[in-house]
């Protein structure tokens, strides 16, 4: 093979040394993505007074970060950590429920032929095209009609149905669960529900983790739905809480560093989740699913 490829002009930058131009382009992209975050870290490490005086990209060295975290903790007697806890409940609980519902629906759609299957699937595909944003106000109106507005449920319930999640589960179930295994279960006389839990679910787990992560990030990052649904600030997730901090006025001196520190602390759990669970980000499911 090398006899052919070595001869021609073929591999400008491929053989013999690194491909420098692509490397430089990627490094520039990485810098664009990381520099603002670095600035956030540097700014959060400064005392309120230092924010305007020290050079932007130099961190503060007078213990500003701990002081800022302490004032964040004191902010309205621990409101910030309550918001963090709420975000975890919405994102964790919502993603878990969503993954379960998607797994069952995806399995049902992939492994059974039944009247109405096409209709259900078509409806779900259509729902992907309706942006969640335009549903938020109608959902609020209905929830308040039912007396559920401004409760945990008003944010959790609309987060459960994920058309994309169901779609991915269907593709994944069709690909990884052999029909023969299900048939064998049936011949052994197991019930359909039992077959799902004992045979169908296990091979789907890698795909389910991807669906869980997508939903977790989606709910954690959501702003409009909780912003519209919740009136009681003790129920706010971090996104809405931090927004109200900005909205209540950037006039007072200490507020800038408080918000900057709050923003930094709020993104750490998700970035940690990302780096730890990297190998579970099976996004090939998404790109693979359009080829079929």
């Amino acid at each position, binding site marked *: 093979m090398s006899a052919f*490829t070595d001869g021609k002009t073929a591999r400008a930058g491929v053989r013999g040394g690194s491909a420098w131009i692509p490397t430089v382009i990627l490094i520039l992209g990485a810098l664009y*993505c990381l520099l603002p975050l670095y600035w956030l870290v540097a700014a959060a490490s400064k005392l309120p007074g230092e924010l305007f005086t020290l050079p932007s990209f130099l961190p503060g060295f007078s213990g500003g970060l701990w002081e800022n975290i302490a004032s964040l903790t004191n902010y309205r007697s621990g409101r910030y950590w309550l918001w963090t806890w709420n975000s975890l409940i919405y994102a964790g609980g919502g993603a878990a429920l969503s993954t379960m519902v998607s797994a*069952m629906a995806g399995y049902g759609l992939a492994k059974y032929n039944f009247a109405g299957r096409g209709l259900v699937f078509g409806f779900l595909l259509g729902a992907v095209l309706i*942006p969640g944003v335009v549903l938020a106000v109608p959902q609020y109106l209905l929830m308040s009609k039912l007396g559920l507005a401004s409760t945990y449920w008003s944010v959790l319930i609309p987060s459960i149905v994920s058309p994309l999640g169901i779609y991915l589960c269907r593709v994944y179930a069709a690909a990884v669960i052999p029909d023969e295994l299900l048939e064998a279960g049936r011949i052994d006389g197991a019930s359909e529900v039992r077959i799902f839990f004992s045979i169908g679910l296990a091979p789907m787990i890698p795909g389910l983790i991807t669906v869980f992560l997508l939903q977790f990030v989606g709910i954690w990052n959501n702003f409009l739905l909780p912003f519209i649904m919740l009136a009681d600030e003790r129920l706010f997730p971090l996104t809405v809480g931090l927004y109200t901090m*900005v909205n209540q006025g950037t006039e007072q001196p200490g507020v800038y560093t408080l918000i900057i520190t709050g923003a930094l602390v709020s993104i750490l759990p998700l970035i940690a989740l990302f780096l730890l669970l990297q190998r579970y980000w099976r996004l090939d499911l998404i790109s*693979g699913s359009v080829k079929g």
Partner: protein
Amino acid sequence: MRRKRYHPVPPITPWLFVGPAVALSLFTILAPFVYSIMLSLRGIRVSGGGLGRREEVFVGLANYWTALTNAELWAGFGRMLTVGIITVPLILGFALLFALMLDVPRVRFARFSRIAIFVPYAVPGVIASLMWGFIYLPGVSPIREIAANLGLPQPDFFTRDSVYWSISNIVIWGGVGFNMVILFTALRGIPADLYDAARIDGCNEWQIARHIKLPLLLPAIVLTGLFSLIGMIQLFSEPTTLEPLSNAVSTTWVPMMLVYRDTFVAQSLHAGAATSILIAVLTTFASVVLFWITRRRSQGGRT
């Protein structure tokens, strides 16, 4: 795909699995939609002169007419579209560029760059807007500081015109990584012997990218384009978060902010419902049309 034969299962069984999802989507997607349509056809009217009672009556399409003749709604659509015209091609372009660069043999720091570019996906739009908002804000802006140190004029990120770029930059920063990873995983799925065959035929890396990778990536590009378009319609967090920081962003900068103001600040449920149904219909129509066009094109282009 050939339909498989199954052992007879009771017809109710599949619904045990599909049922929860169907019930929940009826409750969270269809019912709110129907309920808002009903609300949008009603309104508060005062009957019997100045001291009359305020009551809710059927008003037909009056709310829709009010919404459609509201110049601010159309201005909002215009601003949303402007941001979309800037962001969608740039997100797709950069995502494609980075994905192709990651796929070049012997590229250095590929793993580091891939993770770094994906990281902003983990940052909520509100938090990203807060962060960039401060980076733009006179007094703390590092960019203005650098410009001042170099003796350059300090850029103003919050003028009537520059604010489009300021908001677009936040959207692009948050959107490139996810799309890049989708395109990159699709690239990884292309069998390597295709490239070997092309190299034997004397193709260089550029030609391989242009004539093999791009056509095979087309379905994934269509998908990411659709995601970016839906993202544009959802534009709400970024302008809402920047609004307290800048006079250049009004409280009705995009249509969704207008709906929010109508419903919650002006306490006019019926007007808010009508506007949100209008937005839903227009945007759903737009995404269906786009989906249809791109699908036809990508299928026409495939062999």
